[in-house]
C-alpha cells in the first residue's frame, strides 16, 4: 500500500467511524427531549426511566464521538496539511464556529447527564434544547466545510496560483450547503430513531414485552417513521443539486459512460471502464433524465465528456450510491406499516416479522449513511477541492503513515468493541437492578 493510499484509507475509516457517533450525537437529544417531555406532561415513570437510561448510554457514545472527532481534527492537518494550508484561510470560519458549537454541546451534555438531581425537572428539560441545537449547529458548520469542498467559491486564484480576494461568507454559503445539510441532518435523526426502535424490538423478540419496551419502541419508530418521507425529499433535492454542480459525479454515481438522451436509471451492475458499459444491472428507461431534469427525454452527460484521469472510481461510487437509494427507499416501509398497524391492526406491532424488520432497519440506516458518504467523498476524487486542488497534491510530505494507519485501526476496533461491551453490560445491569428492587427505585440509580 502506498503512503497516499494509507492516508486515504486512514482518513476514510476515521470518518466512517466518527459518523456513527456523530449521527447518534445529533439524534439522541431529540429522542431524550421527547421522552423527558412526555414524562413532564404525563408524570408516568416509564418515560423517566427511558430518558434516564438513554442519557446514561449517551454519555458513552458521546465520549467516543468526541475522541474520534478530535482524531479527525488532527488527522485533517497531519495527513492533508497542504489542503488545510490552502483551505484554512477560506473555509476556516465554519470550523471556528464549530468549535463554539462543540463547547455548547459539551457543556449542556455535562449539565444534562450530571444534573438530574441538581436542577428542577423543568430546568433539566430546558437544558436539553441547547444540547439539541448545539448538535444541529455543529453539523451545519462541518457540512459547510465539506460542501465547500464539493462546490468551492469565495476566492480567486490568481495567475501565480495564489488565493486572493477571499470572501469567507460566500465560501461558507456555497451552493451545496443547503441540500447537503438538510439531507445529513434528517439522515441523523432518522437513523437514531431506527436505532432506538431496533434496541427495543430486539428486547421484545427476547420476550421482554413490558410497557417500557413498547414505549421505547414507539418513540423511536415515531421519529424515524415521520421523518423518513422528508428524508427522501431531501435526497431528491441533493441529487438535483449534484446534477447541476458536479455532473461528472452524477454520471459516475449512475454508471453512465455515454451522454444519453432520455437516459435510463441503472440499478446495480458493475461499471466496466475498459468497455465503458455496465455489466448486469437493472435498467429503468427514462428514469434518470426524469429524476435529474424532471423531463424524461432530457440529455444527461456521460463520463465520456471528461478526461479519464479526472474520473472517480465508478465501481465504488455507483455501488455505494445504489446501496443508499435501495435501502433508503426500503426504509419507508417500517413507518408505513407501523402507522397502518397503529390505526387498524395493533397486534401487528407485536408481530415477530415486524419486530425483525425494525431490528434490521438500524443497520440499514447506518449503511445508508456510510454509503451516502462514500458517494459524496469518493465521487469527488481525484479532487479534494473540486476542480481546484487534487488529493495527491494536498498530501503530507511526512513519511511513515502506514504504521500509524495500523495503530489507529487497532484503536478504532478497540473502541468499538469496548464501547459495545460497556453498553451491553449497562443494559444487563439495569435489568438486574430492576429485578432486585422494582422499577421506581431503579430509575434513580
Amino acid at each position, binding site marked *: 500500500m502506498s503512503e497516499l493510499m494509507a492516508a486515504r484509507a486512514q482518513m476514510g475509516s476515521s470518518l466512517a467511524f466518527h459518523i456513527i457517533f456523530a449521527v447518534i450525537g445529533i439524534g439522541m437529544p431529540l429522542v431524550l427531549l421527547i421522552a423527558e417531555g412526555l414524562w413532564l406532561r404525563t408524570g408516568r415513570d416509564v418515560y423517566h426511566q427511558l430518558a434516564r437510561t438513554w442519557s*446514561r448510554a449517551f*454519555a*458513552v457514545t458521546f*465520549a467516543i464521538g*468526541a*475522541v474520534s472527532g*478530535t*482524531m479527525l*481534527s*488532527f488527522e485533517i*492537518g*497531519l495527513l492533508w*496539511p*497542504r489542503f*488545510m*494550508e*490552502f*483551505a*484554512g*484561510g*477560506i473555509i*476556516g*470560519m465554519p*470550523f*471556528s464556529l*464549530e*468549535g*463554539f458549537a*462543540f*463547547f*455548547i454541546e*459539551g*457543556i449542556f*451534555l*455535562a*449539565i444534562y*447527564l*450530571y*444534573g*438530574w*438531581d*441538581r*436542577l428542577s425537572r423543568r430546568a433539566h428539560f430546558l437544558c436539553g434544547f*441547547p444540547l439539541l441545537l448545539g448538535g444541529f449547529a455543529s453539523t451545519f458548520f462541518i457540512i459547510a466545510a465539506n460542501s465547500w469542498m464539493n462546490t468551492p467559491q469565495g476566492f480567486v486564484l490568481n495567475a501565480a496560483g495564489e488565493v*486572493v480576494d*477571499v470572501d*469567507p461568507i460566500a465560501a461558507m454559503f456555497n451552493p451545496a450547503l443547503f441540500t447537503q445539510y438538510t439531507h445529513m441532518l434528517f439522515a441523523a435523526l432518522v437513523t437514531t430513531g431506527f436505532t432506538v426502535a431496533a434496541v427495543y424490538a430486539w428486547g421484545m423478540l427476547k420476550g421482554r414485552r413490558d410497557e417500557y419496551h413498547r414505549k421505547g419502541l414507539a418513540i423511536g419508530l415515531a421519529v424515524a417513521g415521520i421523518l423518513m418521507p422528508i428524508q427522501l425529499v431531501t435526497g431528491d433535492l441533493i441529487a438535483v443539486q449534484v446534477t447541476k454542480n458536479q455532473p461528472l459525479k452524477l454520471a459516475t454515481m449512475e454508471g453512465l459512460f455515454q451522454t444519453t438522451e432520455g437516459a435510463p436509471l441503472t440499478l446495480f451492475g458493475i461499471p466496466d471502464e475498459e468497455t465503458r458499459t455496465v455489466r448486469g444491472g437493472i435498467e429503468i428507461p427514462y428514469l434518470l433524465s426524469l429524476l435529474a431534469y424532471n423531463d424524461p427525454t432530457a440529455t444527461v452527460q456521460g463520463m465520456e465528456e471528461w478526461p479519464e484521469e479526472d474520473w472517480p472510481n465508478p465501481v465504488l461510487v455507483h455501488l455505494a450510491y445504489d446501496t443508499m437509494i435501495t435501502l433508503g427507499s426500503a426504509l419507508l416501509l417500517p413507518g408505513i406499516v407501523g402507522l397502518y398497524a397503529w390505526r387498524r391492526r395493533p397486534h401487528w406491532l407485536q408481530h415477530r416479522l415486524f419486530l425483525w424488520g425494525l431490528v434490521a432497519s438500524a443497520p440499514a440506516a447506518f449503511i445508508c449513511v456510510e454509503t451516502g458518504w462514500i458517494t459524496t467523498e469518493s465521487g469527488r476524487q481525484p479532487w479534494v477541492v473540486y476542480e481546484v486542488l487534487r488529493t495527491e497534491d494536498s498530501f503530507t*510530505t*511526512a*513519511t511513515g503513515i502506514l504504521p500509524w494507519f495500523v*495503530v*489507529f485501526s487497532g*484503536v478504532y476496533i478497540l*473502541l468499538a468493541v*469496548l*464501547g459495545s461491551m*460497556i453498553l451491553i*453490560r*449497562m443494559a444487563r*445491569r439495569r435489568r438486574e437492578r430492576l429485578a432486585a428492587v422494582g422499577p421506581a427505585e431503579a430509575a434513580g440509580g
Partner: protein
Amino acid sequence: MADSTLVLLAALSLLVGLSAYAVLAGADFGGGVWDLFASGPRRADQRAAIERAIGPVWEVNHVWIIFVIVVLFTAFPRAFAALCIGLFMPLTFVLLGIVLRGSAFAFRAHSEGSPALQRRLGLVFSVSSLITPFALGLCAGAVAAGAIRPAGEGWQTVPVSELLRPFPLLTGLLAVLICSYLAATFLTAEATGALRADFRRRALATGAALAVCAALGLVLAVDEAPEHSTALLEGRGLPFALAALVLGIAGIALMARRAWRWVRPVGVAFVLAILWGWAAAQWPYAITPVLTFEAAAASPAMLRVYLVCLAAGGVILLPALWLLFRLFKGGHPEAGRRAEERV
C-alpha cells in the same frame, strides 16, 4: 483595523485558548498522573477524588485543544501546515494519548461492577495522561529550538534525533510537571482531611521539582534555543519570567502554610506566567526563527470575520461555561460527589 493589529488579536486569541487548555485540561491530565501514582493507605480514595473532580468537566475542557487547532488553521494556515508536517511524529502521539485518555476515562466511569476491566482502563487512562502533555511540551520545545525548517516549497519533518535532544525532552517533562502541580493544587483545594494532606504533599514536591526543571530549562535554552532564551531573559519575556519566579515561591509558601483559599488562584497565576513568558519569547515567530505570525496569517478579510465570530461565540460561550462550573465546581468540596453517584 490595521492588518498587524488583526494578526496580534488573532494570536492573542490563540494564547487565550492555550491558556484555558493548559489550566483546565492540564489539571485533568495531572489528575491522570496522580491516578497513576496513587499510593499509601488512601489510594482508592485518591483515585475516587480525582474521578469526581474530572468527571463532569473533562469533555468541555478538552474542547479547548480543538479550539486551538481550528484557530491555528483558520487564522494561521501556513503555521498549521508547518507544525503538522514538521512535528508529525510527536503530534501523532499527542493524538493517540488524547484518544486513549478520554475513552478510557469515560469507559471506566461507566463500567461499574467490572473491577478487573476498570483497573485496566484506569491504567490506560493514567499512562495516556502522562504521554499527552509530555508530547505537547516536546512540540513546544522543538518549535522554540527552531527545529522546524523549510524545505523547498514546504517543510522538513523534524528527525527523531532532534526531538530527543535535552531541551525538548526537558520541556516535555516541564509540561508533565505543570499538569501534575496544577492537579495536586486543585485537589488540595477541593479535598478535605487526610486526603487533602496527601495532595498537599504532592503539590509541594511537584512545585519544587518544577522550580528545579524550569531553572535547568533556562540553562539549556541558552545553547539549544538561543533566540528564545534571549527573548526570555532580556526582552519581552522577562516580566513574565520574574512573575513566574515570585508566584512559584508564593505558591509553595502558601501551600506550606495551608492557606487553602489562595493556593488555587496563585497556582493558576504561576502556570499562566510560565505559559505567557514562553509565548512572549515566541513572538513574533509562529515557527522560530523562519515564519512570523504575520507571514503565516490568513487574509485580513478572513481575520476580520474570524474575530467577529470569536466575539459572537464568546457571548454565547461564557455564560454557559459559568453555569457549568457553578453547578459542578461550586466551591464546596463535595460539589461533584452527589451528581457522580446519581448518573
